[in-house]
């Protein structure tokens, strides 16, 4: 039992490598029931009129982590709905992640400046966001590619947050969806959607319960449910099997180490 309680770090890493690699080499489908939050997320985007303006606060710095498949799936549905998308990033590294996402979602076929615009990294985090929503072109006179925003077709009719129909807060921490809720969605009573990592989803339940965010993709599982709804199996679905197995093995290991721990204590008369 002491082997289980003092399990070696190397053994744990080896187990994790095996359970992640096997489903990648031998993929198998996993049925995932669709939850209410993902369904609401899908329904809100489905209800958008063509040419609705979407302000997408996006924090994606790595491919294949949770936010990236969420971005690609969301943009695919937004493209079907013919929505106009404005991208906004709190972090420098997210600017490139945004580009990966909309390239993979097929946005290069659309007209830049008319159908979408990538504002890129906006320094100053929340302080700048609070000003940006009151005067978008004033705070961000050039986009990520150094094109002037004043002459872009989108910004001939989108000047402030009042001209935006939907705000999507995506990310994993502060600043992120929390900032969008506090500074944009609640004060200006905007329609909001949430796409967040599983770790940060726990901090966002309050906003979901209050109805600030009308729908949510919570972690990779949320994205898998959403990909099922849009009928396009993306990276989240492909990579869900390793996550599934890792969860099961981790639950087993946690229970086993705790059983071993309590067995040792019971033998020692309760002393640690």
């Amino acid at each position, binding site marked *: 039992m002491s082997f289980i309680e003092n399990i070696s*770090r190397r053994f744990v890493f080896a187990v994790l490598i095996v359970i992640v690699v096997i489903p990648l080499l031998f993929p198998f489908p996993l049925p995932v029931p669709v939850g209410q939050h993902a369904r609401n997320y899908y329904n809100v985007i489905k209800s958008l009129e063509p040419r609705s303006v979407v302000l997408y606060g996006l924090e994606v*710095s790595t491919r294949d982590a949770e936010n990236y498949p969420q971005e690609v799936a969301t943009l695919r549905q937004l493209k079907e709905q013919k929505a106009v998308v404005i991208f906004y990033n709190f*972090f*420098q*590294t997210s600017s490139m992640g945004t580009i990966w996402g909309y390239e993979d979602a097929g946005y290069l076929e659309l007209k830049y400046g008319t159908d979408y615009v990538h504002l890129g990294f906006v320094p100053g*985090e929340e*302080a700048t966001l609070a000003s940006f929503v009151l005067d978008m072109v004033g705070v961000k006179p050039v986009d990520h590619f150094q094109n002037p925003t004043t002459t872009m077709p989108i910004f001939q009719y989108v000047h402030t947050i009042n001209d935006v129909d939907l705000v999507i807060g995506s990310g*994993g*921490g*502060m600043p992120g969806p929390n900032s969008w809720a506090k500074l944009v969605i609640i004060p200006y009573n905007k329609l909001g959607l949430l796409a967040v*990592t*599983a*770790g*940060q*989803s*726990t*901090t966002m339940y309050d906003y979901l319960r209050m109805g600030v965010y009308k729908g949510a993709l919570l972690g990779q599982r949320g994205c898998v449910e959403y990909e099922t709804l849009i009928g396009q199996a993306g990276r989240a679905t492909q990579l869900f099997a390793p996550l599934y197995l890792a969860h099961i093995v981790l639950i087993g290991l946690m229970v086993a180490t705790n059983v071993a721990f309590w067995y040792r204590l019971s033998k020692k008369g309760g002393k640690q």
Partner: protein
Amino acid sequence: MFIFVDGRLTLFVLMACMYGAAFFIGQWAKRGKTWYLRKMPAIDALVEGIGRATELGRPVHFSAGVDRAGPGDPDRAQAYPILKFVAENCAQRDCRLITTVGKADVYAICDQIVKEAAVTSGNPDWYKAEDVQFLGEDQFVYAAGVMGLLPQEKVATNYIFGYHRGSLINLLEAGKMNDCFQIGGMARQSGEMAFLAICCDYWMVLEEMIAAGAYISKDPGQLSTVATQDYVKFALLALMITGALLITANIDFIKRLVLL
């Protein structure tokens, strides 16, 4: 409504009441009133960690977080007094302190705090500019820097304060792998809080982090800030309970008042 944005009058009144309470309780503290703060094992253990590092002849590492500086930021506001306390104790014992920051604007503040701590503890030569390091703007770049620094400098004690995003587990596990004595704290609710409980020898969250500066300095002004927060919480709690009971009885007076 007049000069107020619709729906924000009550917010303005609440803010004004909080500011008034902060002012008057601050004056009360100046006239000699003190408040008792319960024991905080994590703060008491800060010196223990520095002592361990001094005995082993290895440095202490202090992480000030990966968030921007901001006057109303509780993580940042409390990481600074803790850094000052740790720096003074390290300077007194001539124990090396490596301070790392994840945002460039925080670097200047932390550098100043460490420099001043050296002077106030009577050991100005202890301060070295290269011991306050800016590691990178991205959370994982910062984490990579710390993960490299801990074994390279053979750090004995690892203090993780301020806000860290997803990279917190990287920092804490790296510290564990290097057999560091670890204390961590976070003043914001985050999904990463559980890692502090799992990986740190002592940890503090929210209330304890917010009161850390007052607990360390026992300064009447800072104690009055903590007291003001507690009084405001009691008042809001009373308002919430009253509102919940009235709403249950179908009286929506407080609800309409709050939505003014």
